[in-house]
């Protein structure tokens, strides 16, 4: 039987999604359900002086109106930060309470303070308009850079500072800088983004008064984790009385990791009114209240020798958390960011210092890449600048500082098990025809255009686990995964995974793995996920961890099945288990050449007897049935890496930037399904290029979101991209049996610096901030013209 791992198996999901048979949360309707509309603050910061619901209550169709007071009375817990971060001075981080419905004060535009539940959506909407709120508007703090000088947003949190964290050794860095020939420094802004999943958030909460069980259908990337948080911290219901179902989910990118206000409020309220409650976000609510991403202001320095050796690195960053600290809010700008900021380089001394600040803006949390795009942007912009200032070719300078031996002990935290960065760079250069660039630049020049080439090399720590490591760094939960592999008596297999697919194609990739492990045709394997009542447990899908953690749990459960199969075969064929081999779905006794198929073994395990004989195929003490569970907690993160190269052409008259060529050469370890990996790379690149050239979430000084719709927030479209030139180098991870590393975030991590390095190269080294909009580039072109004419 040919191995399926490594082949372009068509997606099992495609038929369902392409024929409109997907089943998303808003597709689900329950008898007698009600509809919720949230009353949200129109102000970025205000005290709630008076909340009057009397008129709204009389509005037609209203079932109930609940406010922050009721939620406080019922002691329903607030939203929480999942990682505790300690400041450099040893103090614990300071986080404000974040009640699901605000009672006294609202802290960003969109912060909910009441829910109106009615018989129909229209009635709920019209009643919500009648809720009257008397606000005392307070001065908002919106700027990341100035947040520490603004009014105190949350009582007791001085300077709006959540923590002031340090990773690394300042003294060693100082010594390194003292020895340097040159210090390259840079000030950068990592622009704020809105994730914009295609499916807006939604939830449908149901309560069964007889079983006292709440069922919550919700758009979550991690239903098991959501249930745990809602029970343990939200006090919504004991875990065994709460079922969380995340059916088909149309994209997450990190924005659907969090348990949101609406999940808690609808679950709690469904029990209170003893009816099902449905809520579906409108797009404008998504813009305002989904978590946002990035939003860093960074000053970084690189100490170098004249011949281009890196000696030391400093990273001083202010990270905006928004109004509240959410699940991955505090870890994203610390452990997911700081360690990766030294990039793929051997730098003997380094530190990352991050001040995380609260502002009156939507909470900022993990968005595709989470911390690693910010880190890569910092170091790769700096290295590019170093190459310009030192006059050393950008690829040579990088290669000069790549590690050559693996495992590579990176300066700050990680030990990278495997990789070959030089091979990746060389292949990328070849794919991009790096050496032929000058001719293309001249051609652009002859047409009055400016051309630039940008390179960036990255590594990322993903496959987020091991539990001991993450918990030592402050994580509130373990980050293992589990899987259950269950044979039916008639030979098909159901695999339950704790990971969740919202675009990642687990149904195909995981089935390929199980098919290879068990020798069962892929059509006979189903992957089940997304329901806390089905399967054991899981921590969810983010940080490119589904395959590297969840996939390995499946492999391990399959291996247990095979072990049991060997024992049963041995009994049935009167051999010893050590003499039984398993290959392509068959158990073979080498000595006698007798065999049993895995289907026969499954049948025997479920029907362990024979007519007219008192005889069992199962060895003494063996349980009937063929089902195994495995929990997997890896020994390390996984470390994809690669080099990307971009070329842009700029029209100096309008400032328009055209991305002409984009080459990505990545090392994802072993690739299970190249077609699916390409899709992941394309999507990541689209978001990374979006950050570099188009996307920007902008608040005005009063805290109003200026980019709250697609009229103003630029989502990139297909015609903004060239055909992507994608290739791989494959060094297998040594930390898991498949050798896989994860591929979901790479594009979003590598693309922003790659594209910006190209733009800035075209602009003769002038710094501009992301996104490189036509106007910014036009201004830089004017400066360039001025300085060129001065020089002439």
């Amino acid at each position, binding site marked *: 039987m040919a191995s399926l791992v490594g082949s372009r198996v068509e997606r099992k999901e495609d038929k369902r999604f392409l024929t409109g048979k997907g089943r998303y949360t808003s597709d689900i309707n329950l008898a007698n359900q009600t509809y919720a509309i949230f009353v949200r603050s129109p102000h970025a910061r205000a005290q709630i002086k008076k909340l009057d619901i009397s008129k709204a209550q009389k509005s037609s169709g209203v079932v109930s109106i609940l406010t922050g007071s009721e939620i406080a009375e019922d002691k329903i817990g607030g939203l929480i930060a999942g990682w505790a971060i300690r400041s450099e001075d040893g103090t614990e981080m300071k986080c404000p309470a974040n009640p699901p419905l605000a009672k006294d004060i609202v802290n960003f535009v969109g912060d909910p303070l009441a829910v109106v539940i009615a018989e129909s959506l229209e009635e709920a909407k019209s009643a919500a308009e009648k809720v009257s709120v008397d606000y005392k508007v307070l001065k908002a703090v919106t700027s990341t850079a100035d947040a520490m000088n603004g009014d105190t947003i949350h009582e007791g949190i001085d300077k709006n500072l959540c923590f002031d964290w340090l990773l690394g050794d300042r003294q060693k860095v100082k010594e390194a800088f003292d020895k340097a020939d040159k210090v390259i420094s840079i000030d950068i802004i990592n622009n704020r983004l809105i994730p914009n999943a295609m499916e807006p958030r939604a939830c449908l909460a149901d309560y069964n008064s007889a079983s006292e069980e709440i069922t919550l259908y919700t758009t979550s990337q991690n239903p098991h984790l959501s249930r745990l948080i809602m029970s343990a911290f939200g006090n919504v219901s004991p875990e065994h009385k709460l079922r969380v179902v995340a059916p088909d989910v149309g994209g997450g990118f990190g924005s659907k990791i969090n348990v949101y206000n609406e999940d808690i409020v609808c679950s709690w309220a469904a029990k209170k009114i003893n009816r099902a409650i449905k809520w579906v976000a409108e797009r*404008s609510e998504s813009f305002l209240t989904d978590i946002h991403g990035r939003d860093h202001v960074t000053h970084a320095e690189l100490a170098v020798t004249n011949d281009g050796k890196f000696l030391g690195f400093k990273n001083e960053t202010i990270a905006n958390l928004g109004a509240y600290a959410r699940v991955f809010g505090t870890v994203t700008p610390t452990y997911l960011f700081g360690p990766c900021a030294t990039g793929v380089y051997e730098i003997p001394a380094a530190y990352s210092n991050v001040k995380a600040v609260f502002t009156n803006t939507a909470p900022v949390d993990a968005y595709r890449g989470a911390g690693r795009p910010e880190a890569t942007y910092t170091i790769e912009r700096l290295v590019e600048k170093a190459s310009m200032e030192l006059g050393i070719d950008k690829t040579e300078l990088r290669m000069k500082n790549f590690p050559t031996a693996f495992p590579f002990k990176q300066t700050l935290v990680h030990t990278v098990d495997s990789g070959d960065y030089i091979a990746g760079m060389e292949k990328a250069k070849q794919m991009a025809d790096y050496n032929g660039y000058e001719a293309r630049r001249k051609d652009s020049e002859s047409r009055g255009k400016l051309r630039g080439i940008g390179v960036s090399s990255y590594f990322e720590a993903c496959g987020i686990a091991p539990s001991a490591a993450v918990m030592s760094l402050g994580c509130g939960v373990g980050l293992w995964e589990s899987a259950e592999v269950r044979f039916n008596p008639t030979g098909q297999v159901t695999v339950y995974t704790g990971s969740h697919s919202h675009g990642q194609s687990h149904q195909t990739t995981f089935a390929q793995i199980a098919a290879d492990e068990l020798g069962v045709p892929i059509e006979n394997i189903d992957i089940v996920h997304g329901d806390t009542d089905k399967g054991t447990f899981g921590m969810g899908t983010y940080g490119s961890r589904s395959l590297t953690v969840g996939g390995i749990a499946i492999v391990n459960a399959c291996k247990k099945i095979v072990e049991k199969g060997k024992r049963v075969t041995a009994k049935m064929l009167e051999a010893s288990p050590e003499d039984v081999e398993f290959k392509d779905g068959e158990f073979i006794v080498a000595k006698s050449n007798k065999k049993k198929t895995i289907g026969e073994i499954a049948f025997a395990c479920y029907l362990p007897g024979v007519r007219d004989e008192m005889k069992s195929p199962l060895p003494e003490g063996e349980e009937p049935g063929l089902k195994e569970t495995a929990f997997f907690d890896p020994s390390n993160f996984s470390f994809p890496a690669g080099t990307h190269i971009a070329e842009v052409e700029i029209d100096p*008259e*309008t*400032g*328009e930037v055209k991305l002409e060529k984009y080459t990505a050469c990545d090392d994802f370890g072993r690739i299970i399904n190249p077609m699916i990996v390409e899709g992941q790379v394309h999507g990541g690149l689209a978001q990374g290029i979006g950050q570099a050239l*188009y996307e920007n979430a*902008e608040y005005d000084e009063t805290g109003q979101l*200026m*980019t709250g719709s*697609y*009229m*103003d*927030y*630029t*989502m990139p479209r297909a015609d*903004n991209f060239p055909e992507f030139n994608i290739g791989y180098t494959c060094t297998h991870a040594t930390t898991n049996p498949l050798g896989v590393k994860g591929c979901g975030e790479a594009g979003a991590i590598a693309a922003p610096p790659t594209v910006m390095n190209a733009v800035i190269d075209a602009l003769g080294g002038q710094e501009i901030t992301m996104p490189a*909009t*036509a*106007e910014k580039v*036009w*201004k830089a072109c004017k400066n360039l013209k001025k300085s060129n004419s001065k020089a002439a």
Partner: protein
Amino acid sequence: MKDFNYHSAKDIKEASKLSSSNSAFLAGGMTTIPSMKLGLASYKDLINIKNIKKLSGIKVSAKSVTIGAITKHVEVANSKEVKKAIPSLANLAEGIGDPQVRNRGTIGGSVANNDPSADYPSACIALNATIHTNDRKIEASKFFKGMFETALKKGELIEAIEFQIPEKSSYQKHPNPASRYAVVGVYVAKHKKDVNVAVTGAKPCVYNDKDLSKALSNSFSSSSIQNMELDSSDMNSDIHASAEYRASLVVTQAKKAVDAC
């Protein structure tokens, strides 16, 4: 969206009879429906005019192209007659919004709405259009009054728009990358006697740029406007483009248009 009464008018007379101070005509609905959904507008009565045969169709004569008000953008974009008589007009229609918008949005709706960044108003100015209503004929130069403001009286219905066929013309749009409306769009049309340079997106309302028109009337070549700097003091400035940038784009797009003529 607030409740409203829906009517479907079978002819112009009925449409105008149904209209009141609190009604809107429903053509493509591409502006009206989103603004009602967002709560930015509400009407007591919506009067569908799409079934009024007299409002549709394209007629070409030696001197002009007349397009019925409910003609969709896609129909103008694909019309062989328009492509032949005024190719730049078909081109403009093809660049409006996206396929969904072009399959529903109408020329009458666009002109009546007079969005400061809409494309068609610039065509009306550049091509010395006449707006035919159920009551009168209005010259384009007197039709567009200000931001979202026109010479139409309450309940007055556009029947057709008549464009004068120029010697040469071109429309060049610098789209907002998010909405793809014009940040600046410049419609250059060379007529027998003079040249119009109609600009959309730059100011609160479409206008004919006198300086550019004059320079191009004297000498119809992009070099004649090469180094012109426009006064940006009354130009729009927002998160997408500053006034200064818009002023520069007007000249750049005008040059492109002249070169494309």
